[in-house]
């Protein structure tokens, strides 16, 4: 069963000891900042169940950035979405990494209630992972070297580090 990847900031999903009022099974409201919808849709990426395309998806995400940074993400099983009534639709990505764009998906028709359920799903069932900045840079360099990304399509701050 394939997986879905959503870019997040891991630290918003911590059980934060500096928030003493937060109970153990509760999510900080700030985490919803990682799930900002547009036209009631949310951008995600499809990842093979063996995660064989994970690095390509990470490069696609990184290639749209202003500068090279870590990529934090949540990874969860597609099948879990059926339990909360969220639909998935293919929607070609618009990144400089054209080979990876077909893995882009939109989660659609999201209501506020469904968004909360998605946040709970990510909190309880998703793997929350980090690819460090140095590795992200290495992956982008490889993609440029292998002509998967044209360096002119990258932001200047990234292109400068790749050269």
């Amino acid at each position, binding site marked *: 069963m394939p997986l879905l990847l959503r*870019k997040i*900031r*891991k*630290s*918003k999903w*911590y*059980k*934060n*000891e*500096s928030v003493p009022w937060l109970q153990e099974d509760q999510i900080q409201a*700030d985490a919803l*900042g990682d799930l*900002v919808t547009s036209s009631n849709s949310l951008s995600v990426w499809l990842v093979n169940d063996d995660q064989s395309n994970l690095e390509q998806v990470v490069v696609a*995400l*990184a290639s*749209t*950035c*202003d*500068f*090279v*940074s*870590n*990529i*934090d993400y949540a990874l969860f099983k597609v099948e879990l979405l059926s339990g909360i009534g969220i639909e998935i639709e293919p929607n070609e990505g618009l990144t400089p990494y054209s080979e990876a764009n077909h893995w882009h998906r939109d989660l659609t028709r999201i209501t506020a209630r469904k968004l909360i359920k998605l946040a709970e799903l990510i909190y309880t069932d998703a793997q*929350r992972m*980090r690819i*460090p*900045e*140095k590795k992200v840079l290495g992956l982008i360099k490889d993609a440029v070297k292998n002509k998967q990304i044209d360096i002119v399509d990258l932001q200047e701050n990234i292109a400068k580090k790749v050269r």
Partner: protein
Amino acid sequence: MRISGSSTQPTNMIPTVRLVSSGTRPIKAVNNDKISDVPREASTEFHKSPDALYSIIEAIFWAGREECFEDGLQSTFSKTLESLVKECGKDALEVITILIVYERVEPEVASEALRWLGRIEHLESYEYRRWLLERSLSSFSSRVRDGALLGLSSMDDKRSIKHLKVAISRETNSELEADMKSLVEQLES
């Protein structure tokens, strides 16, 4: 409060900070001082009063509360912070240190600041910034500690290993501890 200027503003210009709306929290007086008044040749010397600089930087952090930060993307806050450090050097960093170490700013904004302090290209302030990042590994807030970790990851400086190992030994958040260990491995490799 808002920082005047827009994302199209050149990054070498420091926007004027001014009070344009009231908040629920009393704010120290914010003057219309322009940091860009600082002579360019004295990039690490700030000739305005420390109080004025404190107010300006506090206002920048306060305005940062209204922004939604995302890894890899610049923000008005990050552009302003970068310009400020490059223009005012140690003077700005001393104020930023007070705001972060004494927890006078929101953890999310402090965390964003620390991420940027690790990536700014400004040799004169490098050691100060590295010190502040290492110091912030012991912040009460795990979000601030994570910002410090990411700043140190950007610096990629082996001298931080010993500070990271101390931080690992007292870290209570297992996810953050794993990320700290990961950075130690990166620096040792």
